[in-house]
């Protein structure tokens, strides 16, 4: 891993490593969802609206 310029907050060693673990688990999820929506796209099912347009909470 290469970590460029030092941040002003200490991100914490454990907090950095746990992100890699979570990423490994979630990256799979995101990839599956991305291809799933592509597959749905072939059948003309549109994805949900962009998150950015959502209210901050319901």
């Amino acid at each position, binding site marked *: *891993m290469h970590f460029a310029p030092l*941040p002003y907050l200490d991100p914490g*060693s454990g*907090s950095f490593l746990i992100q890699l673990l979570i*990423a*490994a688990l*979630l990256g799979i999820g995101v990839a599956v969802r991305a291809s799933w929506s592509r597959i749905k796209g072939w059948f003309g099912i549109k994805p949900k609206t962009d998150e950015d347009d959502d209210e901050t909470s319901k």
Partner: protein
Amino acid sequence: MRMTTKQANSEQLAASFRDPSGFLFSRDGVLYRQVNRAYEQEYRRLIESGLYEKLVKAGLLIPHTEVDPFPARGDEAFRVIRPERVPFISYPYEWSFGQLKDAALATLSIQRRALKAGMSLKDASAYNIQFVLGKPTLIDTLSFESYREGQPWVAYRQFCQHFLAPLALMALRDIRLNQLLRVYIDGVPLDLASELLPWSTRFNFGLLTHIHLHAKAQKKYAGQDVKSRGSATFSKQAMTGLIDSLDAAIRKLNQDPGGTEWGNYYDITNYSDAAFEHKKQLVGAWVKQVNPGLIWDLGANTGVFSRVASSSGSFVVSFDIDPAAVEQNYRQAKKEKSENLLPLLLDLTNPSPSLGWANRERDSFALRGPADLVLALALIHHLAISNNVPLPQLSGFLAETGKWLVIEFVPKSDSQVQRLLASREDIFPDYTREGFEAAFSRRFRIDSAVNVHESERVLYLMEGK
């Protein structure tokens, strides 16, 4: 913001010292933020990428104007900006569950938009969020840095400590655990959160990973150099996954504001409709007469009278001790899209102190005043009788808290006072209308005193001497 450090003909704010990107200072009562040269590229990127405009439009970032450069510390300065003033600074330990949750979701929403613009939040402090026009808004314009592909999120730990851990504790253990934020200025330590959360939260993927495993990893790798470990990188997709996962974990947490001390207070008061209406009418008329900029409603419950007071345009901070009442108040304000009403949690018998480095990072309740007008309705018996505060002391405290005062005297014969006295000896011989007026006349000029219809209570308008 009175607590400042003299510096080169301007006042640097004591809370603004950690980040080398710049700092806040005030001059002639106006608040400015100096952007340091070290931050020049990031600042340009924030503006030129269109991210600034997008965030401001969405109400997620405080708008600012660039002003003629007259920096406080000239040698380091790149630019000086003047952020729009926040009407009242509040802190996460004064927020209800819903407020902290909305602040968390706003932070994640900002991070998502930043990533789309090739930037990332370099901190995720709950103190960087303030309620502006009723919505959680980032007030630190210098919180962004260029996103570097492969890098994990620098602010991940801070986000978990400031938002996820206290929200999980409030929702799943006890609502009062938000007060841990008052003790731990950089958020709830994750090992503590992990210990306090119910064991069953290990079956919740978000809490298992972001809190329990996170705490374990912190302990295991504390102080180790991770820069040289392996060749793993953190893709942008992984970053998006992380943010989505935090978002899902936060959204899953809910808290029902029913059933604490005051949740249904208005159903159990001894007010007739006529008395209630009369009280509303008096408060409305006096607020119009005084025309205050800032009103503090102390003991506001769910904010019925705060709403009366805010209807003529004043900014009303609506304080109450009960988390359920504050939550209901906030939900209603949100539903009404109220822009000048801020519900906050406050125990008047032990108000927020000055906190942080040198006791100067977070201002106490008193330092954020005085208000132009204080409302103290159906409050005095709780302070004078339940908390044994002598009336002259109460008068002194309120005189320092507000320039004008609308206060309700609740006599001993009132059933609410009888209820407070039911289980204790009556050691309050001075708690009479005469004793009350004598005590308050020391610090106030009594402008009006009106008997509330169909009630034994008296409503006063007073001006500080």
